[in-house]
């Protein structure tokens, strides 16, 4: 997909008519743009910024797919299996990119890999909304959709994401008074 067909920012013609899902889609544009602008500005702690961006992007992708698929299921959407397969394929692609990124040590190579990931996410989301998500536009209704914030769906989508919080304080001996 070219830049002409896919705008940098989310535009109303990409709306699927459900606010929570549109908000998720906007998020992907924003995070992809955030990564690209960080790469352009090249601050001292770019790597740390990219790692945080990529972690959040992955969480939001997983949370968003969970939201869409639960809604399709609730609505009895007939193309759920196909749609789910496309989501899984993208998750696998993104996962490979992240794995590769984590192996890179060279600063410039990291920038290139992160740039590529941001472009892939941006272009895929744009293409996927226009060609695949639009197919459920008239099928899904707001009542089918879990409209809680994306972070909560991300938590549920994460396999180990129950309440087994990791305790930073247990790393240091002794606990505080009170």
């Amino acid at each position, binding site marked *: 997909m070219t830049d002409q067909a896919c705008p940098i920012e989310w535009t109303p013609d990409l709306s699927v008519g459900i606010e929570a899902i549109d*908000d*998720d889609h*906007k*998020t992907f544009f*924003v*995070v992809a743009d*955030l990564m690209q*602008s*960080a790469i352009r*500005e090249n*601050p001292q*702690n770019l790597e*740390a*910024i990219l*790692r*945080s*961006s*990529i*972690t*959040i992007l992955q*969480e*939001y992708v997983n949370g968003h797919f969970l939201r869409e698929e639960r809604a399709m299921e609730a609505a009895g959407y007939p193309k759920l299996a196909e749609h789910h397969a496309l989501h899984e394929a993208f998750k696998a692609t993104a996962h490979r990119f992240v794995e590769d990124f984590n192996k890179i040590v060279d600063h410039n190579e990291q920038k290139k890999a992160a740039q590529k990931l941001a472009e892939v996410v941006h272009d895929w989301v744009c293409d996927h909304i226009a060609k695949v998500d639009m197919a459920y536009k008239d099928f899904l209704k707001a009542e089918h959709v879990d409209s*809680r*914030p*994306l*972070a*909560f769906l*991300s*938590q549920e989508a*994460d396999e*180990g*994401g129950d*309440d*087994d*919080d*990791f*305790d*930073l*304080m*247990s*790393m*240091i*001996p002794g*606990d*505080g*008074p*009170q």
Partner: protein
Amino acid sequence: MQDKVEIVFNILSAEYCLVLDPNPHYQRLVKEILRFGGPKNLEIEFAVDADHGLRLLREGSMHFIVMETKLPLEESIDFLMKIRKGRAKWNFDISLPIIGYADAFTPQEIYRLRDAGISELMIRPLSAAIFFKCLKSASSRKFIETSGYCGPDRRRRLVMNYANKRRADDRAAELAEAAKAEEARLKAEADAKAALQAAAKAEEEKARKLEEAQAEAARKKAQAEELAREKAQAEAAAAAAAEMARKKAEAEAAPAKPDPSAMTQEELARHLLKQKK
């Protein structure tokens, strides 16, 4: 999951939040986490340093704060203490949740931030899911105000990115290792100091003994010299006495000079004859 629903509601009721981080990229990242992941109509204010943060807090109450804990660290700790201990000073809620983050923490940094009143700490990379877990945990904490400490109940858990649990386990080992290393370093430092002190003391003792030995040697030398001098004097006196005795003996042994006036005619004649010869 009744507990979860109730807590989600609590977090989602937040309307105002302060983000304290001078880095514009993290400001934006945190903004996106909160804007898309959190309360629908949350208003976010950004501060670039502690003074700016306090000014914004005075201007309008916030429901929670998200902050970089290495503003630098001392500035972050000062900011936390000013809020937590400012019951009489501020018009805003000093018990509000404060979530801190940094790339890494030493055990000492965690202690200090905890004792300054931080609610939760996160290690970067930031995670949206963990972010909200921290908020949930922080908003369910009792607030303690004593003369020594003001802040959330410290008998609690600080949360970090469970998505990076393995990394966290490594980090835990690293931190424990670091604490051990620090302890060993301090002990080595103390040992080295003690060894230095002992060496200095030994050196001092050695110098003192050397000085003493030198003084003793000098004293003995002077004594020997004195003895030699006395001996020489005695010898000289003895020699003089011997000479005098010898002279006296000689004098005694020598025949008396004849006195011509007391001589008889015969003796005088012999004497004159002798002189003539």
